[in-house]
């Protein structure tokens, strides 16, 4: 369970996130969508401890994690992935995943076993001994997910794990994310690929210009005039409703 209350963050004069409050219920898949520059990644960075909020609080599973260091937040079971994949380039896939696994276990053999299991699950088993920097984009995205999963998280923050993948690859990741959620791990994801959002999440928040503009069941959100305008510009919803062609 993640509870974000009145979270704000400015960079100089730019308000990146303004008074955002939202909840990710336990074991659910919740999506955060919004146009580019809406402040989604900044919001994630604050939840995961990479940015300190100016105001507001973040609570995870009952504990106040506001402004804690990332490794401490990980200890609370909240683990993020990165939109721009950040593999440990000089290490192999197995070594990459083991770093995550070491969060749970201290012994090398146990960490290696977890790495093998997780890799199997994410379709990386054949690449375990490859250096991480030789992976394709799709495989790097899987590696991000694999490392985070190896820590044994209670809540995963997935920042665009589907971006840049083809529809087949998206479908594969969607299936994996669903099985992870089925095990009781909460999923909070930022996504532009609507195919993924619609098929995965039942609750969606929409962020625009740093502020929440809509929340609700994903199907309803896609038809919300405020959401359409945020993406397509002022008056777009009305024109769509009239059946007029968009400029």
């Amino acid at each position, binding site marked *: 369970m993640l509870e974000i209350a009145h979270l704000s963050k400015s960079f100089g004069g730019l308000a990146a996130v303004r008074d955002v409050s939202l909840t990710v219920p336990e074991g659910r898949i919740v999506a955060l969508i919004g146009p580019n520059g809406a402040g989604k990644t900044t919001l994630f960075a604050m939840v*995961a*401890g*990479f940015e300190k909020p100016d105001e507001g609080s973040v609570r995870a599973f009952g504990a106040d994690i506001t402004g804690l*260091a*990332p*490794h401490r937040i*990980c*200890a609370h079971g909240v*683990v*993020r*992935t*990165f939109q721009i994949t*950040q*593999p*440990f*380039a*000089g*290490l192999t896939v197995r*070594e990459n995943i*083991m*770093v*995550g696994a*070491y*969060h749970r276990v*201290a012994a*090398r053999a146990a*960490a290696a076993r977890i790495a093998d299991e997780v890799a199997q699950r994410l379709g990386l088993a054949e690449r375990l001994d490859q*250096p991480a920097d030789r992976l394709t984009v799709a495989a790097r995205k899987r590696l991000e997910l694999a*490392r*985070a999963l*190896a*820590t044994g998280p209670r809540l995963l923050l997935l920042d665009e794990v589907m971006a840049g993948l083809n529809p087949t690859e998206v479908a594969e990741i969607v299936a994996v994310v669903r099985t992870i959620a089925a095990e009781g791990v909460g999923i909070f994801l930022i996504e532009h690929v609507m195919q993924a959002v619609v098929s995965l999440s039942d609750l969606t928040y929409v962020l625009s210009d740093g502020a929440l503009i809509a929340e609700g069941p994903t199907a309803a959100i896609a038809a919300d005039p405020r959401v359409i305008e945020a993406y397509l510009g002022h008056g777009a919803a009305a024109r769509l409703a009239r059946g007029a062609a968009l400029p």
Partner: protein
Amino acid sequence: MRGPARGRWLVGALCIAAALAVPFVVRSDYLLNFLILVLLAAYLGQAWNVLGGYGGQSSFGHVVFFGTGAYASSILQTRFGVNPWLGLPAAAAAGALVGAAIGFLSFRFGLRGSYFALITLAFAEAFRIVANSVPFTGAGLGILIPLNQSAANFQFRDKPGFYYVALALVLGSLAIAWWLERARFGARLAAVRENEDAAAALGVDAFRCKLAAIALSGGMTAVGGTFYAQYFLYIDPSIAYGVGRSVEILLVAIVGGVGTVFGPLLGALALQAIGELTRAWLDAPPLSLVVYGALLMLIVGFLPNGLIGLTALGRRRRRADA
């Protein structure tokens, strides 16, 4: 045990046996002195490698730990009558403490890369200047350790004694590197080296990891300083804290192959051999340095993974961009 693994242990055991047998075969003091210096350089290079290779934090002032170790045991010995064998752990503790202090100050403020290299260089220079100025360290005169040759006093009558101690140091440092490649601490250290943010997201306390690495590296290097002081029985500020030795220490690791178990050993052997041979063949000192420098440039320029990259041992490891 699988076949290849058993083979590796066998080769390792044979190498150790051969190294142990060397003083029974080699009678020349010149050659033994050469080997002792190779072993000391390999040991210091491996100590640097713990922080610079595995941890990716390239120190340019590792001599600060070397000198601290040399001074710690020598001062304890000459002023307080402490046996140098007891001075050895004291030196290690002093080196670890100085390492932790420097690490705390620089990592706390997020210094990385060249900035970290520069701050370590500055610390080493500061220590040299202090050692040169205060009476406690003997100031510019340095410290002359009184001659009292006995194994109990860490002053061996002949070279083999020192050779075995240096060999023990190298084997110990190889064991530490071997452990780093297999332990959780080493995996986390490598993760921090490759990508600090990603490591932090996976629950790694990067600051603590780097602090532990610099303390370990500093403690190891300081032990090398004590060995040096006992071998030559004289230290002064420029010997103990000279910039040149910092460069020698990191070159050994870089030429051999950073972040590898056997790189520093190979690097030490190559650098000492090149140094000796250019000195012996080219009588004019400036010319030998020119050749030495040219060879270094060739190695660093054409072998980014170091000499170890040429061998089967280095094939798996590639140099990480620190």
